[in-house]
């Protein structure tokens, strides 16, 4: 099975950054998301984050909010998220779930960790779970053998970076800018500094997300980070496509462009 450790090992051996793609489960449909994520892997994504659609996504910008809203309208449930992870993991990518905390809390931390591991998932990213509240989740994840990824931000103090990095396994997620998810004209100038500030606190790979959407931006980030995370730009391609086939073609094209970017 592909794990985060093997992904980053392979990328390092190829002297490049890893490419991480995000897509919410259930968008545009449950099977549509599996197909799109699989296309992203085939075109060069090393890691896939499957978003767990949540009613109150307070860290997300309009694009992801829109996709998540549609996923919930489609009746996407946690069982569907697990099925999506299972489908995507078959493509050979290390597959994570990105979720706000409450759905796991409600489902039960141990049960969620076990079910995710059973589905072939390798870990979670939990953007609103602070280290102070993360104890039960870290234990549940450790016993299920999955990774726990947390975020550091440009506003994080040295002390906080240390605390967050200590909670991470797999990699550390560095938010490139102060703001919500969404593609932007340029990647935050704070990103490189944040990666540099994070290094002394951890031996884990550091990946950069928020605001990355083009091959050029991927190349720029790949110069200093171990992984490049892209979400809204993929969703945008699917939202703008006239039909599912065109959508698949568009995400495949973007994944290829980004994969080329991380190899420059």
């Amino acid at each position, binding site marked *: 099975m592909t794990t985060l450790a093997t992904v980053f090992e392979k990328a390092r051996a190829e002297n490049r950054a890893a490419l991480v793609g995000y897509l919410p489960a259930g968008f545009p449909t449950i099977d549509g998301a599996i197909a799109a994520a699989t296309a992203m892997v085939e075109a060069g994504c090393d890691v896939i984050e499957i978003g767990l659609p*949540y*009613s*109150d*996504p*307070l*860290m997300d*910008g*309009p694009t992801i*909010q829109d996709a998540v*809203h549609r996923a*919930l309208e489609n009746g996407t*449930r*946690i069982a569907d998220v697990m099925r999506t992870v299972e489908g995507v993991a078959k493509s050979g990518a290390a597959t994570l779930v990105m979720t706000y*905390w*409450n*759905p*796991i*809390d*409600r*489902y039960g931390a141990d049960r969620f960790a076990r079910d995710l591991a059973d589905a072939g998932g390798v870990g979670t990213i939990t*953007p*609103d*779970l*602070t280290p*102070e*509240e993360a104890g039960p989740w870290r234990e549940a994840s450790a016993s299920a053998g999955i990774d726990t990824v*947390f*975020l*550091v*931000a*440009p*506003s*994080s*103090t040295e002390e*906080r970076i240390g605390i*967050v990095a200590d909670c991470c396994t797999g990699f550390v997620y560095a*938010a490139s800018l*102060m*703001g*919500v998810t969404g593609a932007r004209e340029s990647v935050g100038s704070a990103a490189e500094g944040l990666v540099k500030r994070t290094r002394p606190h951890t031996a884990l790979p550091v990946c950069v997300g928020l605001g990355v959407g083009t091959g050029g931006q991927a190349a720029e980030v790949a110069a200093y980070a171990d992984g490049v995370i892209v979400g809204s730009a993929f969703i945008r391609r699917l939202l703008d496509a006239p039909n599912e086939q065109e959508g698949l073609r568009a995400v495949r094209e973007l994944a290829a462009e980004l994969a080329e970017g991380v190899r420059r």
Partner: protein
Amino acid sequence: MSISEGTLITPADFTGAGSAGDVSERGKFGVFGGRFVPEALIPALDEVAAEYEKARTDMAFIREFDHLLRTYAGRPTTITEVPRFAEHAGGARILLKREDLTHTGAHKINNVLGQALLTKRLGKSRVIAETGAGQHGVATATAAALMGLECVIYMGAVDCERQALNVARMKLLGARVVPVTNGSQTLKDAINEAFRDWVTNVDSTHYLFGTVAGPYPFPGIVRDFARIIGVEARRQVLELTGKLPDAVCAAVGGGSNAIGIMHAFIEDEGVRLHGYEAGGRGLETGEHALTLTAGSIGVLHGSRTYVLQDDEGQTIESHSISAGLDYPGVGPEHAWLKDSGRATYHGITDAEAMDAFALLARTEGIIPAIESSHALAGALKLGRDLGPDATILVNLSGRGDKDMGTAMKYFNL
């Protein structure tokens, strides 16, 4: 001593004894509270917490807050005995704490003045806030105008429509009102949007949170600024009746007016604390905001508390005729008061609230906010239970002028 002598508040009044959720506990009320927010906001929350810790024991800050409460908000507010209304409550003695008489017409002014002062101490020039009924938005816009702060208010598009008058008031006060069109387009979505603004503009901006919910340190700060309601009322009831009330009643949405009046009584074991949530069209219809009475423990808007949620943790949309109570979460301190048994929470339907709304107007010449009418309806029931010897203190948290559109429709006026 008359309460108009000296300062209204002292450092001790800020938190009193026996309060949970102070700094040493990092905002924990038993298992409730805490922080569930993006890491990007942690430094800002820490900064607010640290500055507030300094401010609340700084006599200069306390004097300035006190001065504003007295000369701008109109404190102390009086208590009014309402015997004609109380006839409908089995003859129990009912006393109203008149927060409706404050400047802007609701208790929200207490919290916004405190937090606006705190914003200036933080060296920030812009405030944002969420609003449901529009009362917190109006209060925030008022304080921002008073102190020369830029002000942006997030308000659900549905609420903008049903509270058009308050939208106009905010605009007149110089605030920008942003209608929020995602999700249920009500208070919870306005809070989401305000958090998104804050994480983007945190260097210049203070999120002037409107209720005792949200991540630490907000539940404690908002409580402390609202606490003056109960501190005054406790003295006033003692002065008037020579004893403490048998019960204190308040409406609960997010819970700031309720914690404001209840908190000074927590140590008074003989005083029963009753919170009244919006029962909407009734529990069985699923259209209600009965977070404490029918919800379950979860995380919403940065805090562990009771939440209206489905079996997978998705927030369920609430309903109430009163926009101010139309919220699927509640402050963590109320969750703690409920589970510890210190306070009891009940549902009041739209119909019961509107009956109490009309009754107070007819019998006493006071038009209450529909939010506050939930507490009045609760007091009517409680009075019949406790009997004619009981004294019941009710927080009349706001006036009803803003609700006349709803009342016209409801009563065919």
